[in-house]
């Protein structure tokens, strides 16, 4: 039970922090961690189907696609340097 509460706290902190971060890459990685913890929580709630979908799509593929998208566009710091 304590383990689950700890996971929920980490997940909440991660969700808030990913909104606050200015650096997009860090925000995407923290969002991936939030997805991973959500997958673990789904497993504890006896929903293995959802946990597999969340781990594969939420934690792995979405993070990768966002990282590629950031790579294709400019990161914020570089943009400010240009201006």
């Amino acid at each position, binding site marked *: 039970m304590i383990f689950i509460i700890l996971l929920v706290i980490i997940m909440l902190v991660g969700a808030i922090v990913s909104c606050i971060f200015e650096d997009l890459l860090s925000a995407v990685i923290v969002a991936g961690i939030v997805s991973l913890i959500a997958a673990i929580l789904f497993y504890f709630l006896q929903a293995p*189907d959802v946990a597999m979908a969340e781990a594969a799509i939420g934690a792995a*593929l979405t993070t*990768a*696609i966002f990282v*590629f998208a950031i790579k*294709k566009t400019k990161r914020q710091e570089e943009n400010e340097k240009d201006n």
Partner: protein
Amino acid sequence: MRKIISFILLIVIFVGIYFALAQIPYGKNKMNVSKHYISNGLKENGAANIVTSVVLNYRGFDTLGEITILFIGAVGLGMILFGFETKKKDIKPASLILKTGCKFLFPFILLLGIYIFIHGHLTPGGGFQGGAIIASGFLLNYLGCSKKRISEKGINIIESLGGAIFIVIGLLGLFLGDYFLLNFLPKGAVNTLISGGIIPLLYITIGLKVGAELSGIIYKLME
């Protein structure tokens, strides 16, 4: 001033939602339809995994909508990235350890994905999960040994065939019986690989379609 007004508005909305939700008894089953699924799902569909029998049989039409949404997303991404060229930087070739590791892991990841969507009616998982695992295998392949590419034409053919076969199976149910996606095949013995009527066939088509689609998205983004 604006902040205070928005704060008061937030409190009003919160109180309203709280009192609306407080009237609903928490944790009590208010719907009879879920009881029907749990008690009759095994008899009516022959799939040991009740989640699968709900997703593909009772709510099969919704699943068709889901794969259509994914298809539209992939098409939209292709439209945005069409003719989009990035400056190609000289990429350092991956080290021998990384190359060998990804060559070694890639077939096993594919095997796991295929296992998950073929056994979708017996064990947790299914077409979407298996397809996503296959796509993550292709992601590893792109990141590790960047020389290997899969053909875009092959991806498109698998994707279109998957969607078409799903709809054909659904229409067969309409012609042979009463409604779209009727489970017209024999159910077979529960807990064996060939059981559940059309459910394994549908999950194989969904798995191939989702795997091809997500691999295509990664392919388009990496180029």
